[in-house]
């Protein structure tokens, strides 16, 4: 028997509506009751966590770990270390690898690699369409059997509404949620930044808000038609928030997630042509940021995530048009959301923030994670809600450094990450 007791922390377990100062006991990799250990006090590892939050292990349901195919950007091993350093015990990886995760053998490879090398749980998603091309359905049933937790063409978007409809209907049969990167290719064209004041001023091709909203609208219609859940990834615009709010109020099975950069920055940041401000969807206007904050506050946007998108320096060190989209986020997201949502804007409390990183994604993906219930896997994140720290990209565990947040001073961060009862990272 191995046992650990976390002493005197503020235990927050939204799944059980629990928020109290208490001890948390871990026995043999599971959350246990006090009565399960008696006597032999010397065999119990004691950790004093007074002043810290004891939270269920956090889940980031939107990361790119780049393997197979792009191990110069990130590996499953380095990405998992970055996740642990950010306080995450479970990450959901996107299928835009090479080869794409549109077949069971690639899923098996990812799971094998994660079992060998990852210090946190890595759960793969599968592609909606073959080679993410948006034309023919991938073998969704076989992918489900291989162990994916959702289907998505993230980075791409199925344009043909009929293909998308069949994917959603089929996913319903096999019990998988559908995640969608919402981008209308005709409206967006070669856009690289938000279409508005700054794109006009700088002459950069614009990516209009309507290019996201048109697909959000499509997804609402299909979720109703198919009576199945469609989750909209990295929502960025005021219009998207309004559409989702209205649909959710009618009980339509749609949801949305937010990335920290879309509330921490606006499109004003692109004026120096720094490619670490180039991501897809792009940084939006202040009005959009305000709407996202309201959407988080009223529950319209229910999940927080990073869209961790590693790229090598040499790939980002090019002309703005030519640079790949995306930034890394695993090691900064909790600090940014804590700092912005809880401390600065006071949009949500700590309990809701943890809920958006645990209960909400676990429920959507139907995975056994995100709770401190007795008997649950002992995945635990210890958070210091008031710790002030400075982002240093040279200290990142990720293999890449493409972050616009270097030097930012934040308040709140994870200080220890425990997976299956074992500490996999500590500050």
């Amino acid at each position, binding site marked *: 028997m191995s046992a650990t007791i976390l002493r005197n922390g503020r235990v927050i377990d939204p799944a059980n509506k629990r928020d109290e100062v208490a001890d948390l006991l871990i026995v043999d990799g599971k959350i246990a009751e006090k009565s399960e250990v008696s006597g032999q006090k010397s065999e119990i590892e004691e950790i004093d966590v007074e002043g810290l939050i004891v939270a269920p292990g956090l889940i980031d349901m939107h990361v790119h770990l780049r393997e197979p195919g792009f191990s110069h950007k990130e590996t499953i091993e380095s990405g998992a270390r970055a996740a642990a350093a950010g306080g995450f015990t479970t990450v959901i990886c996107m299928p835009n690898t090479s080869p794409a995760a549109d077949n069971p053998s690639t899923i098996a490879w990812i799971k094998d690699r994660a079992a060998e090398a990852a210090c946190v749980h890595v759960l793969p998603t599968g592609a909606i369409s073959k080679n993410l091309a948006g034309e023919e359905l991938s073998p969704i049933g076989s992918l489900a059997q291989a162990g994916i937790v959702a289907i998505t063409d993230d980075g791409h978007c199925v344009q043909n509404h009929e293909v998308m409809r069949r994917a959603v209907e089929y996913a319903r049969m096999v019990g998988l949620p559908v995640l969608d990167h919402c981008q209308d290719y005709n409206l967006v064209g070669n856009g690289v930044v938000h279409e508005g004041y700054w794109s006009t001023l700088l002459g950069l091709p614009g990516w209009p808000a309507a290019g996201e909203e048109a697909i959000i609208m499509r997804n609402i219609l299909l979720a109703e038609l198919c009576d199945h859940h469609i989750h909209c990834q990295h929502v960025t615009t005021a219009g998207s928030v309004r559409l989702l709010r209205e649909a959710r109020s009618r009980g339509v099975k749609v949801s949305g997630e937010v990335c920290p950069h879309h509330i921490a920055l606006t499109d004003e940041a692109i004026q120096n042509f720094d490619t670490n401000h180039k991501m897809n969807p792009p940084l939006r206007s202040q009005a959009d940021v305000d709407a996202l904050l309201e959407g988080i506050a009223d529950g319209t946007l229910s999940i927080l995530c990073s869209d961790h998108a590693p790229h090598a320096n040499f790939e980002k060190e090019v002309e*703005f048009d030519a640079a790949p989209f995306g930034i890394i986020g695993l090691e900064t997201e909790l600090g940014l959301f804590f700092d912005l949502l809880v401390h600065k804007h006071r949009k949500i409390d700590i309990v809701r923030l943890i809920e958006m990183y645990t209960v909400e994604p676990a429920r959507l993906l139907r995975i056994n994670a995100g709770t401190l219930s007795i008997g649950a896997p002992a995945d635990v994140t210890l958070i210091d809600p008031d710790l002030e720290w400075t982002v240093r990209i040279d200290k990142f565990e990720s293999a890449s450094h493409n972050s616009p947040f270097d030097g930012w001073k934040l308040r709140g961060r994870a200080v220890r990450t425990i997976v299956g009862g074992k500490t996999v990272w500590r500050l």
Partner: protein
Amino acid sequence: MTTRWTRKDLLGLRELSADEINFILETADAFKQVGTREIKKVPALRGKTLVNFFVEPSTRTRTSFELAALRLSADVINISATSSSLTKGETLKDTARNLEALHADILVLRHSSAGAPQFLANRLRASVINAGDGAHEHPTQALLDLYTIREKREKIAGLHVAIIGDILFSRVARSNIFGLLKLGARVTLVGPSTLVPCEFEKLGVEVSHKIENVLPSADVVNLLRIQHERQRREYFPGIGEYIRLFGLTKERAKLLKPDCLIMHPGPINRGVEIDSDVADGVQSVILDQVTNGLAVRMAVLYLCGGIAT
């Protein structure tokens, strides 16, 4: 005027003050006079090396820069995209750093991506002169436009300048907007709503979709070429309809004040944005712009080349 020039690069007019713009124009006055001498050459940049690095094709601007550099006694080499290692997959940064390793002092860059000159300027010791980046800025074109207006009308403040045509994809329009507003002109953009979106009003200009309403009060009309190569799709139904709605035809030219200047950055599509006879008429200063471009570029190379170490 006490402005001293402190910039190693010329990236755009948005970042310049009115004083800096005027200082360039005054410096150009001196160089314009050089062009009228029998020996049109001064030793200002002797021993310096200038690279004309044109990743996007150009004849007029490249020739103008080359001639300007030669008249300043610089050594000049020309590199185009097809003759550079970019076609072999080398990055822009690596190509530029190789040129710098060959002791290039001034890099004149034309590139299809907005921000490319700034990208290099932040990474090189050499001067970077923007010769046009995507739809962003074309500062020396705007400077020669300002120079020409100032030369013909003696001032810029208070004048009403209409910029007509494809504004959305035009770096010439953006640099002109920034420069003209800084020097106190009133600017109206004219063109179809798809190429002149109202978002431009936030830059401090007026937007009109009816050319007849604007021509009578204009002191300068600057006509821009319809840039087919930059447009991914249909922004207007066709050339015929464009001419019908926005072309500066002989009929419409009659609406202009007699002293209104007609400008065009070239190359002209005769019979499209401007009637052929109007382009060659007495109000046209299109060839003066070309001549002045040489003086303005000499001034810019002289000023920036003097800062770079």
